[in-house]
């Protein structure tokens, strides 16, 4: 038996994944996908999503070898059809049930329905994760997820109840508990995943962010309330400044929180002998949002200038004066305006994929070092691939990742 010619360094050193997908390469994929999605009234979205995932997976390199996404649009489409088949009678029942019942019974039914939907959402999230994992290939070996969707749904619901009862204090432990369930049920071939981060760690690491949030958001509100109580509300400008501080603080703190939580999460993840160590900066995600905001603003300015230019040209050409004589502008005008509006919306959505989703993906991977990858040798899992039922449900009740 030959000794495989593996690059020697990976046996001892840590490996940092790399993402090679450039904005320029992603833009055509996204623009074409969004365009087709719109003209097919949304049906193309399954193929569009698949193409975006292919781009993200294919360009992610771990230790010299690229990930591969083997999912297909038609699988998502079928998952969607199954979800429709299951959910339509459910919704129909929901629609008809209150008609048969009295007001109180209807209210109870509504509550039960909300509960069922919440449970179904968690179930779908877990099943969708299974679909994505079983379509993820690295070095010719598939990822896999064991565990049950309903088991996860019940766990998450009980945790949620506990979190509500403790006024959010149990939230870090909920995250840890659920991630532990997900990761210990994650497999790379025959190698089992594990999750070592704890709720206590998350609590202490995010405490500063929570306190900052309370100060930045709660402080000005308390101040304004105090001013109102003492009747000093007359000075309007400081109130506006305070509200602005609140809003800006919120915008900064949310991505900072996600970054801290991501670092905590990634540091706890391992598969077999390989474990991740993450050094994502606190402001890494914030910078992504800022970058997207900048690009979007720039595009907005260009569109504005273009619109102004066209308007000015029409005005100086005397077209508008001719138009005001008539009662209605010609139909062409409306069609052109509609098409313009449509295109601008399309480009904004595409910009988010290219300058929001892509850099978040890149930073998530490139901020992690993987130790012990050289010792990771997996045999192919024999468990069959999962279907896209979960993805379909997630799509039908309007949530779900990418």
């Amino acid at each position, binding site marked *: 038996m030959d000794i495989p010619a593996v690059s020697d360094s990976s046996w001892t050193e840590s490996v940092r994944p790399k993402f090679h997908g450039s904005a320029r390469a992603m833009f055509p994929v996204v623009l074409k996908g969004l365009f087709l999605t719109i003209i097919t*009234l*949304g049906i193309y979205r399954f193929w569009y999503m698949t193409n975006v995932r292919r781009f993200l997976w294919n360009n992610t390199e771990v230790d010299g070898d690229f990930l591969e996404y083997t999912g297909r649009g038609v699988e998502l489409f079928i998952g969607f059809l199954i979800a429709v088949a299951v959910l339509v009678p459910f919704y129909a029942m929901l629609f008809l049930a209150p008609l048969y019942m009295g007001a109180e019974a209807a209210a109870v039914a509504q509550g039960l329905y909300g509960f069922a939907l919440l449970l179904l959402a968690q179930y779908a999230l877990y099943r969708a994760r299974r679909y994505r994992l079983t379509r993820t290939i690295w*070095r010719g070996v598939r990822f896999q997820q064991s565990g049950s969707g309903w088991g996860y749904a019940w766990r998450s619901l009980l945790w949620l109840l506990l979190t509500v009862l403790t006024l959010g204090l149990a939230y870090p432990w909920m995250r840890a508990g659920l991630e532990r369930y997900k990761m210990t049920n994650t497999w790379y071939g025959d190698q089992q995943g594990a999750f070592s981060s704890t709720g206590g760690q998350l609590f202490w690491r995010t405490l500063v962010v929570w306190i900052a949030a309370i100060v930045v958001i709660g402080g000005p509100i308390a101040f304004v309330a105090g001013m109102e109580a003492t009747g000093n509300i007359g000075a309007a400008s400081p109130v506006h400044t305070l509200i602005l501080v609140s809003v800006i603080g919120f915008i900064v703190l949310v991505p900072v929180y996600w970054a801290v939580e991501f670092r905590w999460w990634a540091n706890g993840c391992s598969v077999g002998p390989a474990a991740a160590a993450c050094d994502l900066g606190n402001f890494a995600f914030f910078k992504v949002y800022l970058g997207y905001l900048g690009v979007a603003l720039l595009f907005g300015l260009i569109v504005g200038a273009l619109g102004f230019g066209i308007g000015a040209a029409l005005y100086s050409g005397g077209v508008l004066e001719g138009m005001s004589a008539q009662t209605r502008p010609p139909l062409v005008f409306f069609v052109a305006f509609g098409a313009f509006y449509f295109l601008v919306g399309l480009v904004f959505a595409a910009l988010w994929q290219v300058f929001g989703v892509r850099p978040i993906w890149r930073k998530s991977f490139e901020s992690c070092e993987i130790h012990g990858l050289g010792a990771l040798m997996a045999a192919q899992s024999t468990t069959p691939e999962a279907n896209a039922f979960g993805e379909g449900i997630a799509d039908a009740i309007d949530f779900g990742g990418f």
Partner: protein
Amino acid sequence: MTTTGTAVFFDGLTSRRQDVHVSLEHDLLILRPDGSRLDGWPYEALRELSAPDGMLRLTRDGGPPLARLEIRDAALADQTRRVAPRLGARLVAESGTTRKVVFWSLFAVVSLTIFGFFGIPQIAAAVTPMLPWSVDQRMGRAADVQLRAMLPTGPGDFECGAGSQERPGREALDRLSKRLSDAAGLPVPIQIIAVRTEMVNALALPGGPIYLMDGLLQESISGDEVAGVLAHEIGHVAHRDGTRHALAAGGTSLVLGFVIGDFVGGAAAIAIAQAASEASYSREAERDADMYAVGIMKSLGADAKAVGTLLTRLTARDREDGKAAEDKDKDKGEADKPGKTDKGASIMDWLSSHPQTAERQAAIDDAAGDGPTTPLMDAADYLALKRICGPAK
């Protein structure tokens, strides 16, 4: 011509990475570094998979599904592309799939639209008779609350007949509605509400409530005409047209919302679907309500021809208006908006939901037959009814 080069091989059974040599001979040969043969893939079985730029990622059709050969040597990749005949088989099929998908999606949208606008009303028609009448009543009460908030009314209560001057009108209307509802004998009580608005219209809500608008009352010339319109609306209640309509609208928006997903703004599409299905009842429903009204009027010994005369007269007057009416016609879509209560527009409302008046009058006259009739209301009652929303202006 390059026929050999290096590549990376994964056998699809373990995650072991093998640096191999590739030799393009009668098959694509995969060789170990020492030159011994590891595997041989026939050219027809080679399939290209999605890969990052600069890499040719191959698998063997029929082999382990996750076996991979990754060629990063551009010259070797080019040569492999040249000799493998069906490399792009799946890709061609996929681009074909894209076209197929676009085609079938459009087809699906068309057929769902047809299902939404024709199939769902059919289903609603089949389901409605199975529902208990309490369903209609609950719907009617909900619609009543909404309409009271939406309809533009004159000064005073929404419902006429409460004030001291209006009480005789209310009593006259009660007497009329008792006679009508006794004749109809529906399992739900009929409740006629005189609405303080200049709109020339009458409408039935599911399960009993009927709005009789003051505008229509003022256009009438006899008690039998008013009774005829009310009998027609009772017909809609008896046939449960409103309930069926609401069910169909709910079903349509449900189906469309599902298919479209949230990307293109499902809510907007749902609103459009609802607006479209809230247009008038079908012609059959109107004709059936007419015939029902004729039946009631005849059973009460009243002039059944009066069921259609008010409508016919309004149409005729509208024709005389000529050009003015045409302009109004353009505004038809806006006539429902609050504040738009001038009579022309309101008449158009009524007419637009009641087409083919001449035909209908002929059918009504046919069914009514000739014979002696006695008015349902005496002159004093009719006069009082006309003043139910206050003295004539």
